[in-house]
């Protein structure tokens, strides 16, 4: 058991290392370097020299990679070219805002989706299931910026319940942020709910057809008890994996949704950094998102390990 947990941690560490190398190498592979890409036609003379010195580009790629990773591990992501400040000073408030948005969306969506998935799976192919599955298909396929635009049109422009775009500063308090966060959270949760619900439904249907559920029925166990005692716990395990995968989507979807609502999070900061060709900033945010993602996957793996004794046997 401890060795299994260690292996999961090992794989997470391997993945983060791998991702950081790929990200670093991608920037190394560009024609020119971080400074010429940022300064464009002004990349000459003292400006270029100052930039090269500030970014430490005169050292070998290996030394810079080592510094980057070691710095990032301690929360130091280097220097933003555009904002001319240390990156960690710029991202902290943004990180908090994105965590608030993503966290709320996940917190609302996951239990709700699991419940809906059970309801749909138990009533397979009946009106409730068909309408829920249809709604899930819509939520999954309609792009987030389309859903967001529709919500803005109805709730911000016609009804004027919520602001259409965020105009408070990144450092605003929770209560100030709250009205701005409602619509983005709805957009994000809709997609999360759709994915998790579909998986939970499929998983419930699978378990309902298993021998032990048949057996429980034959023994005369009440249907309610069969569902909550036998079906739901077993159906949860495969759904966990999907929850982790949808969190991955959440991290990417957050970028789009933040941009639509002009929400002051890491996503809008990253998009702005791409417009500005501020590569150290882009790298830093991409790395932070990747670490969160790997962390969520690790958590899902460990929870599955805790829930499912079969996974703890040898050979897995």
């Amino acid at each position, binding site marked *: 058991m401890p060795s299994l947990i260690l292996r999961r941690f090992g*794989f997470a560490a*391997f*993945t983060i290392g*791998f*991702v950081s190398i*790929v*990200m670093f190498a*991608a*920037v190394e*592979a*560009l024609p020119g370097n971080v400074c010429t*890409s940022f300064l464009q036609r002004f990349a000459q003379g003292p400006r270029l020299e100052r930039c090269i010195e500030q970014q430490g580009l005169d050292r070998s790629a290996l030394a810079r990679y080592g510094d980057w990773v070691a710095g990032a591990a301690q929360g130091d992501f280097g220097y933003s070219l555009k904002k001319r400040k240390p990156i960690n000073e710029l991202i902290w408030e943004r990180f908090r805002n994105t965590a608030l948005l993503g966290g709320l969306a996940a917190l609302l969506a996951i239990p709700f989706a699991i419940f809906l998935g059970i309801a749909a799976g138990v009533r397979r192919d009946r009106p409730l299931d068909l309408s829920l599955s249809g709604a899930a*298909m*819509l939520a*999954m*396929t*309609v*792009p*987030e*910026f*389309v859903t967001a*635009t*529709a919500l*803005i*049109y109805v709730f911000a*422009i016609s009804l004027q319940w919520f602001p*259409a775009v965020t105009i408070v500063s990144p450092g605003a308090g929770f209560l100030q942020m709250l009205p701005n966060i409602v619509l983005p959270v709805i957009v994000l949760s809709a997609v999360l709910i759709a*994915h998790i619900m*579909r*998986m939970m*439904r*499929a*998983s419930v*249907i699978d378990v309902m057809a298993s021998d032990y559920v048949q057996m429980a029925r034959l023994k005369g166990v009440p249907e309610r008890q069969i569902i909550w005692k036998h079906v739901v716990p077993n159906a949860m395990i495969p759904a966990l994996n*999907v929850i982790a*995968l*949808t969190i*991955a*989507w959440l*991290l*990417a979807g957050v*970028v*789009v949704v933040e*941009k639509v609502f002009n929400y002051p999070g890491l996503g809008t900061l*990253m*998009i702005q*950094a*791409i*417009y500005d*060709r501020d*590569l150290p900033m*882009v*790298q830093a*945010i*991409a790395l932070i*998102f*990747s670490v969160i*993602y*790997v962390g969520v*996957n690790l958590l899902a793996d460990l929870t599955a390990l805790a829930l499912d004794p079969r996974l703890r046997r040898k050979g897995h």
Partner: protein
Amino acid sequence: MLKLLATIASKPSGALGLGLTLFHLALAVLAPWIAPFDPTAQNADAILLAPNATHLMGTDTLGRDVFSRVVHGGRLAIAVTFTAAVIATLWGGFAGIFFGTVGGRVDEYSMRIVDAFLSMPWLLFLLLIISIGGAGPLTIIPNLGFFYGVAVLRVVRGAAMQVSARDFVTAAKARGEALWPILTREMFPNLSDILLVEGAMRWSWMLLAFSSLSFLGFGATPPTPDWGLMVAQERGLLSTAPWGVFWPCVALSSLIIGINLLADAVGKALGLDRATAVAV
């Protein structure tokens, strides 16, 4: 093929998917003949007109005919994502069949790397590449093709492992057949259904990804008529001129829904249940 189409069209969702997809493909091909105006022609005398008899869907901030732009708006997105979907299915499918057939150490170590790729948020990585290599289709096609191919690889490899355990493959191995004929003659024909459905499904997710990139300003470049870009450009006038945003949204969503329904119906018609598959 005809039989398959008939099975798909026999269910309402399949018929809707097939209809929407064919409709959009026809629209994209025939766009120059359908559109009454040049989609990029600006007209200073006809700015932000509400829908009327000349401009069926109104005009945008630069006086361009929204109907003509909507009709043209899927061409780039469909071309880019279809190419990328073909690339993803080909390389992911081939690699998946290969690893699923050979198994052993090669397979085990390669899957570690595949898992590592699957556990990075690829859209963010794509954004990183865009900030280096610049936006546009030439950056996006190979990247979409590569990243979605990794997901195809994972699915196809799982299916290939099951096929390679079956008797006719064992028999071919026992006959001393070389790897290549086994891959192409024994494995591929038994996995082509999965490849088809995987490819179609990935295509619909790629459309979603590409239009999101266009919306963010990294896909199509102005003045190209593109649905995602149109929404981004006209969004500021949502309260006074919603037609500039509404129609591109409808067109884009109906195409993605159509392909998705079609892929689902093809899967069901071929006896593959995709209920448990996830978008990655």
